[in-house]
């Protein structure tokens, strides 16, 4: 049985993989929070596989572990499937990076990565939907602001301001938000 260490140091909380992994028949040996003592922790736990958020700043701490372990009986390497670079690309996209003890065959790791990737892929979708919604909200606020400025400059009402902005945007094949940003920028430039 492979000894798996999960590192929880980002909002994504890699520890939540524990359940998915155990349902798939893998045992998670330990979890670790953000710690600058990761090298000592790895040495004590002797995991075969370490999983970490690809977007974690703690990745660089693990690089030190890899460097130090080169001289030890159990050297740890970053998982990069030489035969199938697509696997690594997918793993990085779905947001999980794996460090393994040298000598462990890629076939033994692949099912673990598959579980992790499946778990995170669904989250990724959720997260990007959230980001889109947030961006839209932000855009609406900027458009409102630009509309207000235009109403003041042109002494017009809300509807007319929107129409002016839209016309300008359509004429230039731009989005409404782009015209809004231009109006806001011009306003501060004019004020000097």
């Amino acid at each position, binding site marked *: 049985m492979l000894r798996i260490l999960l590192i929880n140091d980002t909002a994504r909380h890699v520890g939540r993989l524990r359940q998915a992994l155990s349902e798939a028949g893998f045992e998670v040996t330990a979890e670790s929070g953000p710690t600058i003592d990761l090298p000592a922790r790895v040495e004590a736990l002797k995991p075969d596989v370490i999983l970490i958020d*690809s977007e974690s700043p703690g*990745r660089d701490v693990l690089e030190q572990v890899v460097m130090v372990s080169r001289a030890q009986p159990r050297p740890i390497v970053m998982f990069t499937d030489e035969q199938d670079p697509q696997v690594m690309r997918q793993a*990085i*996209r779905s947001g999980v990076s794996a460090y393994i003890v040298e000598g462990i065959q890629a076939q033994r790791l692949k099912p673990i990565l598959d579980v992790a990737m499946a778990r995170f892929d669904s989250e990724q979708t959720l997260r990007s939907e959230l980001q889109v919604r947030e961006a839209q909200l932000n855009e609406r606020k900027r458009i409102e602001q630009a509309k207000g400025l235009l109403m003041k400059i042109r002494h017009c009402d809300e509807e007319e301001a929107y129409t002016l902005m839209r016309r300008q945007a359509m004429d230039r094949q731009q989005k409404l938000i782009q015209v809004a940003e231009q109006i806001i920028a011009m306003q501060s430039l004019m004020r000097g």
Partner: protein
Amino acid sequence: MNERDSTRRTFLKQSIAVAGLSLAAPAFLRSAAWAAGSDAPEKTDLRIGFIPLTDCASVVVAATQGFGSKYGLNITPSKEASWAGVRDKLNTGELDAAHVLYGMMYGAQLGLAGPQRDMAVIMGLNQNGQGITLSRQLREAGVTTGEQLAAHVKQSANPLTFAQTFPTGTHAMWLYYWLGAHGINPMSDVKTIVVPPPQMVANMRVGNMDGFCVGEPWGARAIFDKVGFTVATSQQIWPDHPEKVLGTTRAFVEQYPNTARALVMALLEAGRFIDANEENRRSTARLIAGKAYVNAPVQVIEQRFLGNYEDGLGNSWQDPHSMQFCRDGSVNFPYLSDGMWFLTQFRRWGLLTEDPDYAAVAAAVNQTRLFSEAAGALGLALPASPLRSSTLIDGTVWNGSDPAGYARSFAIKA
């Protein structure tokens, strides 16, 4: 496999031959490799990675202020969380190029920690602007200089802890060099750890470390937050030292040579713009302070960015070797001697257990020819030699002539 190896050998030979020739621009501009009219970028939409540090400035300025579009490039800056992540994304092609630690490119080229990959340094992004911070507790214990630190380390019951940012990175090398220059062996007299730059100050505050070496603005931030002081700037260790580079893979340079050249030109222009005057520097500081970039108060970034240094011990000075981005291109030339220096230090500290072929590795990684074409086209002066001579803090001179001998010459080593 064999075929690939022999291709690489041929390439190395060519690179070395090129490095030995004159680097005068006109010869390159007339070269058949880059005939006028065939220089349109092969790939125009680029993602350029950066880590939130003051020296990401030229990447952010190029991407956001239209320096790319002049060369037909649409540059999207991508804020990254770790150097390891940057390296992986360069290899998978998720990033086209990135603001990277000089040494890390050589670590990846040699496969020191991760997999071996052929990397390319296409230009230097900046010189100077990093530093070593010691904790307030050390100051209270009477340590304000390297000499006092050495005495303190010798009598201390528990080994002191020093942090850097990546095992093969520049900060590790500046820290080790400075400790070594003061008679402290970083491999055996102290404990060294890796801490991500934005977490340095917080970790020092809670007593997790006694010192760290990192890029700005985190040295200034430690003073601002009263948790430490600057015991040495990186430019005191090596005036005008190489620091971050624009890194990519060899495959990218070979597949998209015109894009790579255009990107160097855009970044050179952005760097020249930042260096041009104080107002541009102030605006740049305000731009990069934003949450999307360095995410630190502008007052913490701005002073050292303008060369106004204070060390947190009551000393202040105008630093002639503060962070530079262009200086007519002298900052950016990928000197082979700079690249080799990192290899000599890897050897010194046992990251390399044997001498590599120093000159061949540097000639393979540093794209001097590509850079010379780009800088020449902008009318920037090119050095007469791909090697330069530097005097470091301990008085030793490094000129690239005998790397193996230089690596062996240090009394303090792994």
